[in-house]
């Protein structure tokens, strides 16, 4: 899996890059989404994969025992997911508003819209 996931992350990231360079605003939105998925997976993978249990301490113990996943990167990714969502929601709203203002889905026609 350590050889498979990097390829998948690379594909997500590459697709995100390509989409972010498009003139069509919807494609740019899709690119941002792929970016944030790739970033989350990157953090998750970089800490090392583990098929072990979730880092939840059983009711009868004071600490974790045996193989378990590292909780810290999970906490980081959790934050990243939520922030990514916030950014995305804002971007989606912005795109809608921009489309309403300019009547165009072509980013190049936006250049004159702030004058």
């Amino acid at each position: 899996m350590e050889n498979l996931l990097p390829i998948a992350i690379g594909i997500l990231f590459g697709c995100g890059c390509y989409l972010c360079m498009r003139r069509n605003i919807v494609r740019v939105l899709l690119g941002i989404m792929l970016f944030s998925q790739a970033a989350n997976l990157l953090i998750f993978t970089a800490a090392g994969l583990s098929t072990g249990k979730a880092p939840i301490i059983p009711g009868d113990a004071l600490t974790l025992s045996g193989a378990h996943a590292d909780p810290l990167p999970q906490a980081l990714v959790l934050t990243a997911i939520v922030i990514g969502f916030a950014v995305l929601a804002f971007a989606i709203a912005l795109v809608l508003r921009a489309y309403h203002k300019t009547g165009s889905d072509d980013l190049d026609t936006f250049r004159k819209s702030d004058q």
Partner: protein
Amino acid sequence: MEPFWIILAPLVASLAAPGIVRALGPGRAGVVLAAVPFWIAGWLLKDAFTGAAAAEWSHPWLPALGVDLALKVGGFERLFLFLVSFIGGLVCIYGGSYLSGDGKAARFFVIVLMFMAAMLGVIAADDLILTFVFWELTSLTSFLLVGYKFYDMAARKAALQALLVTAAGGLSLLAGLLLLTRITGETRISMLAAHSAEIAASPLFVPALLLVLGGVFTKSAQVPFHFWLPGAMAAPTPVSAYLHSATMVKAGVILLAKLSPAMSQTELWGWIVAPVGALTMLTGVVMAIYQTDLKRLLAYSTVSVLGTLVMLLGFGDSFSFKTAMFLALVHGFYKGALFMVAGTVDHATGTRDVNSLSGLRKSMPWLGVAAAAAALSMSGVPPTLGFISKELLYEAKLSLPFARHSVAALGVLANALAVAIALIVGVRPFLGGHGSAPVTHKPGPGMVLPPVVLATLGLALGLVPGLLDRVLISPAALAQGFDPKTAKLTLWHGFTPVLALSVITLLLGAAIFLRRERFAFLGRAVDAVKPLTPSAIYQSGLDGLLRAAAYLTDWIQHGQLRVYVRITLLAASLLILLGLWHAVGDFSLTTMVPPGFFETMVVLLMSVSAIAALVAKSRLAAILCLGGVGYSVAFLFVAYGAPDLAITQLLVETLTVVLFSFVILRLPQIRNISRRRTRRLDGAVAAIAGLAMTLVVWKSVHVRTHESISAGIIECSATEAYGRNVVNVILVDFRALDTMGEILVLALAGLGVTALLARKRVLSRIEDPLGEHAAAGETRPVNPHVKTR
């Protein structure tokens, strides 16, 4: 009294000037403010008469670099300080009267007095760095004064030109001075002479000399940097009289004289300085003779005199040095007077064109006397100071070790042309019948008295040259280590070849004056080679620089975000790949976690969804792709022990898909806009970026330099934070502040989304592009596409 008052007093006067001008008006304010420079001049003269020892003062400024605020007022400094402060006083009186109709005369006084302080600083400073600081201040104040009529495009252009030329020279000078301190480890100018052998032997000597001369030649308007000086005539005439004839342009000469004890004892000095000076001497008068504007005539003849001074210093012997000191003083007197005369004539008649001026002696007799006396001094007619200085000049040339006859012949030619110029400026406008330009403003005493004083001094001191010699000139030469006894300042040297040359010069000059119309061909000749003149080269260089800057800005700052992204991605990816290349040996393919069937399928689904998103044209397909990637990621979280992440991911993904569907259906179908070539290029860049990312992750999962720091957190989670889900404990306890920030971001994004979407009519407007239901009073973009899609 301490020497620093010389610099401080004009600065204080400069600060007080606006108040004084407001209270008394410019004319009287000029007289009051003139008291300050006159006081300085008087003090210097008193010290000169009593033969007081050199006054020194210093205060640590940058002790770590050995740079002090060091001032020295010795014999040499006294001569030039006197010249600057004395003429400065007269210029204050003259300028006040000249600008009395100008509502902004206070500005003139403020800057002129600041300039005076800076100029006195250049002369008195005994520290190389301090000299440079004052030097630059004179350039800056000169810029402000040339651009005094800032509403005039030509004045602004001339000011910028003067600043660019002199400031570029200033940079060169700074580099040269720093090299000098590097060679000697000394920043005191008065200590440099002791190191002269060391300087001459140093390999850094040649660059240091060339750089210093770059500063000197630009400031003192030597060929090929002379062109800024006639341009600087856009300044009001009092400024031209002060800065651009009597004082600032002599700063280069002064510095040359200050450094000559340390640097002139080399062959290179003579081979560079003297020829440049000689060339400038000739160029100045040749350019002057065909001019018709009084100020331009004077400006070019000033260029010529500056060339003569530089040439004399280039000769490097005691006789020439003393002659240069004398000529600098004499020139200040007669040229200052002539400039003031030109200004008064301009002020009175409204023109400076020599061809439309004549018969002014009837309306302005005193001015005519001053003009004639100054012109006689400039021509070198006995018994003026100019006669004595010209005799010395010829003697200096004739005592050269080589080429003395040709140098003397060139000198005769230059001086003869100078005689003609003096007659054109100082005599011609006052003779003859009434000219075509009548006197409309009769000049007040403030505009007549200063030139009369200067011109009279030029005459009167010619009768007692020994006094001047003893008090100012000889001490100046002596202070710089030159023997003052070699040259004697007397009116009568006997029947010598020098006297013959003087007579020839006067006769030739008179002949040129009478045939001056013949020299118009020089103007046509200069026009013919216009693209090759230094000023044209300067202009095209400046234009080229601006064009190149505009082109470069357009090229780099084109404003296309996509291109910035492309370049950034490409550069970053290539750098990452380069870095990984060196670590390629460490790549390992071993896996700790073997890929299961379901996991592999999920990764495949995710990748296919992402790739499908690239080409999706239908909005529904885009939503599907998005969901495919998001839910696959959630599944991976489940598979690798992160149930919290999976729950959050599922929730967020669902929300995203809902929001996205809600919005995307209000947008048109996705279409290709960029050209095929662009898409291919972007595809290649994206592929490289993806490859770099893959390799980085690949490497990072196999490298572990530290153990996870989670152990301590897990230890405390249940016992101290009383939570069993460690991820949750981290979020709400260990990194609680972080989480609060996250909530804040979410709240702000929510506010933003609300602000963007919850405007009442946003959504309805898009669904209803013709705007039948839109409220009146708000303009609506007309867009045919919305309706058709």
